[in-house]
């Protein structure tokens, strides 16, 4: 398996359960190290430049990565700070509201429904300025409306020159400069 | 009392009623406590063996009594809450806790203040002292649990269970420590061997006790009222949002 992604490319990993999608994505992030082969960024192997490389990545995996005790706003601001971004609260609020969480802004996320939690952690995508998104089954637990919004967001990101690597079990296509499907088989 | 409240178990009817009761209790408490202190500090004769120091007893003993009484009351309300699933009972239990802890603390402080001159030590691992200390721990546990759970509903029920278990434990603790203590050399000063009290002292203590009782009622009712309004607001917010 070998591929390379340029600006505006969206990699759509398919494959049955256990095919190795998550593993592959985590390897792309540098969270797991491949037994054989390697990942390179701008032509350099990422082993050498882990810190440098991770500056460009936004990874959303199976785990939520939000604190159940903090409110949606607090969680979001924190994860943005981790990306090195300072975002005005009122802007965070706008995005969350746009994502239909107006009611949930100030509740500890423990009280949110499955899908509402997912929306909170996806909200990051609307506020970041990185160049590579790695999304593992981002549509999980999202209702139809939310799914549509997310797809659209990914498109606009790719069209603006971003790179995306993602998985999903629901078939879909995006109109982006370069839409690449890869099917893994276990 | 409990019967009385149970009749008024719905916050709606309870709220105004409490409003009426509070001022009277508050006033009564102020007067009685003042009078009690007056007896204690001025009227009562200097104790021939303990000097002026003993006057602290007028605060200490009633405080100690209420520390224990209020815990049991709290457990009672907690139990009623679980049985009848009556919000108000939970609120009462929650409201009693701080006052109870306060009296416990007061008993401890006055006690050890008294202990310094009497026993030459701030603290002695004597049966009663210890069980009082443990009582404080039980109160603390109750607080901590409630603080830790932010879903009010669950916090109420969970801490209620704890309060009840603690209540079963109170007598055990008291006697266990009693028993444990007599195992070793007889404890330094046994409180039960307090000098047969002069009528006036007893009177003073009783006045103080009733004062404390009225005070407790007043503060507790106030807390419940606040709690009610607070929860009302919360639910309103939730609806509006």
């Amino acid at each position, binding site marked *: 398996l070998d591929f390379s992604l340029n600006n505006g490319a969206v990699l759509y990993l398919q494959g049955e359960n256990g095919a190795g999608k998550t593993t592959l994505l985590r390897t792309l992030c540098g969270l797991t190290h491949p037994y054989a082969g390697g990942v390179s960024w701008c032509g350099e192997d990422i082993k050498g430049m882990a810190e440098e490389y991770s*500056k460009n990545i936004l990874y959303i995996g199976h785990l939520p*990565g939000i*604190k159940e005790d903090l409110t949606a706003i607090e969680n979001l601001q924190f994860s943005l700070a*981790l990306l090195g971004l300072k975002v005005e609260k009122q802007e965070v609020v706008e995005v969350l509201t746009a994502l239909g969480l107006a009611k949930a802004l100030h509740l500890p996320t423990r009280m949110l429904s499955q899908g509402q939690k997912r929306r909170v952690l996806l909200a990051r995508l609307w506020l*970041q300025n990185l160049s590579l998104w790695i999304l593992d089954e981002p549509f999980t637990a999202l209702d139809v409306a939310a799914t549509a919004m997310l797809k659209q967001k990914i498109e606009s990101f790719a069209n603006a020159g971003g790179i995306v690597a993602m998985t999903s079990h629901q078939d879909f296509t995006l109109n982006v400069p370069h839409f690449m499907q890869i099917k893994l088989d276990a | 009392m409990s019967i009385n409240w149970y009749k008024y178990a719905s916050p709606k009817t309870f709220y105004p009623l409490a409003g009426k009761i509070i001022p009277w209790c508050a006033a009564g408490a102020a007067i009685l406590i003042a009078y009690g202190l007056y007896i204690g500090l001025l009227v009562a004769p200097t104790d021939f063996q303990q000097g002026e120091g003993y006057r602290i007893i007028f605060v200490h003993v009633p405080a100690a009594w209420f520390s224990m009484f209020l815990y049991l009351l709290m457990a009672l309300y907690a139990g009623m809450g679980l049985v009848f699933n009556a919000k108000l009972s939970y609120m009462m239990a929650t409201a009693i806790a701080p006052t109870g802890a306060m009296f416990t603390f007061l008993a401890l402080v006055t006690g050890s203040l008294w202990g310094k001159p009497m026993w030459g*030590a701030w603290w002695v691992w004597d049966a009663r002292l210890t069980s009082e*200390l443990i009582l404080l*721990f039980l109160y603390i546990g109750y607080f901590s649990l409630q603080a830790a759970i932010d879903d009010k509903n669950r916090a109420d029920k969970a801490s209620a269970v704890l309060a009840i278990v603690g209540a079963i434990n109170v007598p055990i603790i008291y006697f266990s420590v009693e028993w444990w*203590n007599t195992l070793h050399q007889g404890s330094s000063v046994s409180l039960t061997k307090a000098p047969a009290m002069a009528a006036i002292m007893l009177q003073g203590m009783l006045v103080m006790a009733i004062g404390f009782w009225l005070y407790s009622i007043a503060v507790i009712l106030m807390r419940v009222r606040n709690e009610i309004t607070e929860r009302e607001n919360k639910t309103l917010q939730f609806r509006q949002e």
Partner: protein
Amino acid sequence: MAEALLPASKQIGTLSVLYHILVRDIKVALRRQSDVTAVFFFFIIAASLFPLGSGSDPKLLNAMAPSVLWVTALLSCMLSLPRMFASDHADGTLEQILLSNQPAVLIVLMKILAHWLLSGLPLVFVAPLIGLQFNLTGDQLQVLALSLLLGTLALSLIGSIGAALTLGIRGTGVLIAILVLPLYIPVLVFGAGAVNAVSVGMSPNGALSLLGAVLAMALVFAPLASSAALKIALE
């Protein structure tokens, strides 16, 4: 790209990120006060258990005091160790933190600091009160407090290694204990040693300066070890 320059969002430096991490940890803890008060009360209660176990002979108590109080302090710090990383690990925040473009060592240091402020420091202030119950003298109390001030920070630092190593392993609480207790021994020996010294009328300075040395070493090595351990835990 379009997102590249969001109007309101501007890059922030390492320091400010670290600050965010510290503040958030404290915020989460304060959100459920229990966390903060708990270690504290555990110390008080546990320390009070020993007299219950051993009758009320004042001389015996005073002799037990230094070791009992120090061991209890040590255990209370240890009890709160799992909280240092575990929840961040479970809900994936840790992945996010390590993917953030900041040096892991500093991040870990922040989390250790937060842990100390929340669990170690408070003990320094209660310990003397408990000391009274074991009728310790004034000097003994002073040295106790001082030794704990240095000691607890060292405990948080050293403990972080255990916390990191046991990440994602269930029943952590006890496992951590086994890992860190041996490392804690020097701190205990010098800390309690200082108080004992006073009891027998000697100067505590020797023990205290050794304690300081341990602290210094911990400051240098612990964060390195922990951040390494964290990376391993996530693979």
